[in-house]
């Protein structure tokens, strides 16, 4: 039974926009790219709707579109938009999570994308692999690294498993 596009669209659009905004930056750009991805999804919905992981397909299209639009932006356009007043939706991340998302923003690009697709887009690891065109194993590895890096950044006393193991070995040797 293929997924109904209207249901999917209404449920997923806000999440799609927020995810894109966190990956590529710029909520207007994210909204445009999300709309374009939805147009493409609908034009192929007979196939996309039957996919095991339609989200992977849509996010892949949306991310490509967002990156393409970002690349095409001219310096003048960037300067112009920088001076436009922020829209009400340009609010900072949810209060209480500012520190977390600031730490996520510090992650390497691909790692950050994986984290945002996993926790904001709520995609499964296979769907993230589809969306980013990488192997599922790579997704798992990047998520592990992200957890470790976030731990280091958010908790000064954080120790990775490797560090803990090394300390134990060191203690045993003594």
């Amino acid at each position, binding site marked *: 039974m293929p997924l109904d596009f209207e249901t999917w669209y209404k449920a997923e659009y806000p999440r799609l926009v927020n995810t894109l905004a966190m990956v590529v930056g710029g909520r207007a750009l994210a909204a445009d790219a999300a709309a374009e991805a939805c147009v493409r999804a609908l034009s192929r919905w007979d196939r996309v709707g039957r996919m095991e992981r339609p989200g992977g397909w849509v996010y892949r299209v949306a991310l490509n579109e967002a990156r393409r639009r970002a690349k095409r932006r001219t310096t003048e356009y960037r300067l112009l938009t920088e001076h436009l007043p922020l829209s009400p939706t340009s609010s900072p991340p949810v209060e209480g999570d500012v520190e977390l998302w600031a730490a996520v923003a510090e992650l390497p690009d691909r790692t950050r994308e994986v984290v945002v697709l996993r926790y904001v887009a709520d995609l499964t690891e296979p769907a993230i692999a589809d969306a980013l065109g990488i192997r599922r194993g790579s997704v798992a590895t990047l998520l592990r690294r992200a957890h470790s890096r*976030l731990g280091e950044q958010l908790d000064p006393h954080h120790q990775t498993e490797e560090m803990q193991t090394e300390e134990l070995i060191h203690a045993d040797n003594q």
Partner: protein
Amino acid sequence: MPTINELQHAGNRAAARAVPAAPPLTTISEAASKRSNRRHLLIGALASIGVLAVVAPLTVLRVGDGATEVVAAGAGAAPTAVTQPADPVAPLAGVSDSESEPSEESETGSSDESETGTVAPHGLFGSEGLFGLDGQDSSLSVQIVRGDSAGQAAERAAADADEVIEQDGITVWIQADGAEGTASVLAEPDLFVAVTGPGELIDALAAAATSQKEFLAPWFLADAWPEGVPESPHAPLIPNLDEMFSEDLKERMEERFGDGFFDEEGFESGFLGWSDSDSCISIEIGGSNLTFSEGCNP
């Protein structure tokens, strides 16, 4: 360290942030409908580029006067000198943005400056090409007919066909004649594409047309399926243009047709700029030369 649970909750809060109102579904539907129509055109356009690049890794060298381009082609060959066209032409690097529409070629300025390009060692689908054709010995003709003449060309192709393949609503007519053959398709009511070439190439086309990959398969593009997306009859049908084309080819084609040519929209506007109206384009590949020309007889 944030726990998985904390990350999930934070992610959900971020996902639930207010966003600009979603475009009305009717707007999305209308745009999707337009896009579907454009996409059929794009497939036809992709077909011809795909054919060219499959047969031989290309290096675009020159823009010819009189709406004729000559490019060098060949797999792994030494840099190839291109026969000087009848009218000296400007090297690609000199083509300005304003000349990005192919139909404006004949109005471009010219220069005697010659350019010999290094033949790309890797083509669209790898160094070995597709179907074992290396581009050195192949002669290929791609004809694209737009407008009212497309239907007439399709009727002739149907009448001459030795084999007819129906695939996903698209009809491919195969005309085999010993060492040479022609595969034709009416990709859109006003867009006809015919490929004439070696029999083995046409055989491969026919085989591809009956494969499970639908739509793009008849035009060699199946190998450009996005990596990581399962190949199935329901696989997505967007070719990843970045993955399809060699960097060298992309760079030079973008020089010729403008930045962003290899994005879908740029591709559409750039390539189809050749055929804004009722027109016919012929693309000939022979030996190390490849020629685009307008005004062929459909």
